[in-house]
């Protein structure tokens, strides 16, 4: 029997390492588990598959410098958030949001002005 941990899945295709690290930090700070899985494919497909296969129904796709967040049961292409060459705080916020989707908490802003800190 395969037992999978309840975690957010991140399907990564040639992911930018700094972006990936920040995404994970965002999830970790919210106290949710995650798994990074190397994969290949279109960004929309990666994100959609990640959400579908995650036991928690929340997933992230990252392809190079592009990131998308998805939630089950949204259809492929209807990404909740999408970033292209973002700043680090944006990755952190998107990661946090994938966790907040599970905790049913309001999302942090992932676009807009730079963080105040």
């Amino acid at each position: 029997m395969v037992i999978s941990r309840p975690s957010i899945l991140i399907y990564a295709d040639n992911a930018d390492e700094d972006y990936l690290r920040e995404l994970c930090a965002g999830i970790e700070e919210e106290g949710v588990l995650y798994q990074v899985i190397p994969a290949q494919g279109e960004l929309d497909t990666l994100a959609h598959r990640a959400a579908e296969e995650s036991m928690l129904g929340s997933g992230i796709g990252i392809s190079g410098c592009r990131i998308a967040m998805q939630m089950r049961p949204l259809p492929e292409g209807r990404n909740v958030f999408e970033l292209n060459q973002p700043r680090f705080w944006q990755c952190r916020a998107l990661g946090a949001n994938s966790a907040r989707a599970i905790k049913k908490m309001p999302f942090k802003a992932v676009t807009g002005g730079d963080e105040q800190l």
Partner: protein
Amino acid sequence: MKLIAGVDIGNSTTEVCIGEERRDGTIGFLAGASRMTTGTKGTLANVMGVKAALAEAMDSIGRPVSDLSLIRLNEAAPVIGDTAMETITETIITESSMIGHNPSTPAGAGQAVGTLLFLENISTGKPGVPYIVAVSSKFSYEEAAAWLNRYIPELMIVGVILQADEAVLVENRLQVDIPIVDEVRRIAQIPEGKLAAIEVALPGTSVRMLSNPYGIATLLGLNADETRAVTPIAKSLIGKRSAVVIRTPHGNIRENVLPAGELYFHGDTEEAIDIDAGADKIMSALEAAGEIRNIDGQQNTNVGNMLQNIRSQMRRVASDESGDIRITDLLAVDTLAPVEISGSLAGETCMEKAVGIAAMVRTQALPMRQIAGALTAELGVRAHVAGVEAVMASLGALTTPGTQLPLAILDMGGGSTDAALLDEDGRVTTTHQAGAGELVSMLIQTELGLGSRVTAEQIKKYPLGKVESLFHMRLENGAMQFFAESIDPRYYGHVVLLAPGELLKIEEDIPMEKIMDVRREAKRKVFVRNALRALRKVAPDHDLRRIPNVVLVGGSAEDFEIPEMLMEALAEYRIVCGRGNIRGSEGPRNAVATGLLLSYLGSREQEGGGDGWS
């Protein structure tokens, strides 16, 4: 057959009602319409709105406006209301002696005591001394954790304060389990070298040790006098998820009572009351003063300035040149306002005592005759001012099925709450009380600490829901609503308002239950109190039990919960109270316009009452 129009120009809407005079001398109602009032009530700018409403109503029966033979306007009540708010306590921190806020994710749990030390100076730490380390956001969580881990074997590190939102990240990388507070914005202001106590509450609870004066005394070793001095700190930390209290020799947090000043009521008797005494005392002083001629406040105090501002604002609205603006009624309400503590390190707020005041002034009669003149000139239809608003509203309200004389109406608008009693002999007693919808909006805005008045207005008007998934939301009454199409993720996890046809997001992170409580409480404080006050004024011998019927009319009568609240409050006095249903079809609107038509018969036959209605 003559076509007659009744026109009611209100603060926010202009309503018209078209009727025909039948051969048997009764009036038949044909059409009605409602438009936004153009310009301030009682000014010539209103003419445009009246014309638009008339055109709409006549259009619906397929007749041109010129077919009208008479337009009857209301004599608007010459009162204007305004509101103001003043906090009467303030909390000041000197020498930054505490941190207490609700970061979403602090880490670790428990409490500790240690000397404050910045991470950059950690090499100066001495072995055997317990330290609480403060970390600015220039260190990443990995650097912070690495530094701390390196020094943990030789130094006693008992707690960490972070500037960034990284408590969990740092905790996961530390070799020891210690309380960590994060999201402290002004970390540079932390006084290094001072003794401090830190506490992080278990999930789902709030701090226990630091919200207790004796808890602080235990941790920081305070004597009885010092313990007394930290009581305001303990009070302001109640309900927080994490806290730090710093022992500074002169530093303290103190609660100031602002010199709020006295109110003076000039009536049958002269009464003076200190604002500090609270709303109940203020209102009983107002009652004791009898018929009020004017109200003012002590010079150069908060309340004095507040009333001065209300006066100058009203002077502008009333465009009264004489400068003699007298406040003839006032409604005071106790409230609490979350105010950021001056000198805070993490944007802490404290619930400060405040008082909200609605005041009302009587102006000279509004120039309704000029409006009638302009209408006659522009439409070629004879228009005249036909009756006092409250009397007309009573007549109109009487068309609600199931009513009888004597009948009282409560007209709850934006600025004032008006009541009128129509008795069996056709006599009408009226009163105007300060305080209505606008005061409710102001209370909601301050108590929830909202950035905009518009949000407060919307909270007042619409029921709440919380978006719990992309496909459903939980409504404030506990019901669930499902959607076939996914809800926009921007609303996810947020509390929203169910406006007709759209969802409105509340930006502030406030629980739905809290918003609902504040909204209901604000409505109750203003409307229930004012309804009783107004009805008592018009009741025979000021005895509420002698009013059998109360009909609610006007904007606030359309609210989704105010009529029920009033019904509950008035049931005690065996009063039948409910939302009006003018002519059995119009709901609480159009009472005045309907009354204007009905009174046409009376004015022609020189009789009272509205028996000609069919």
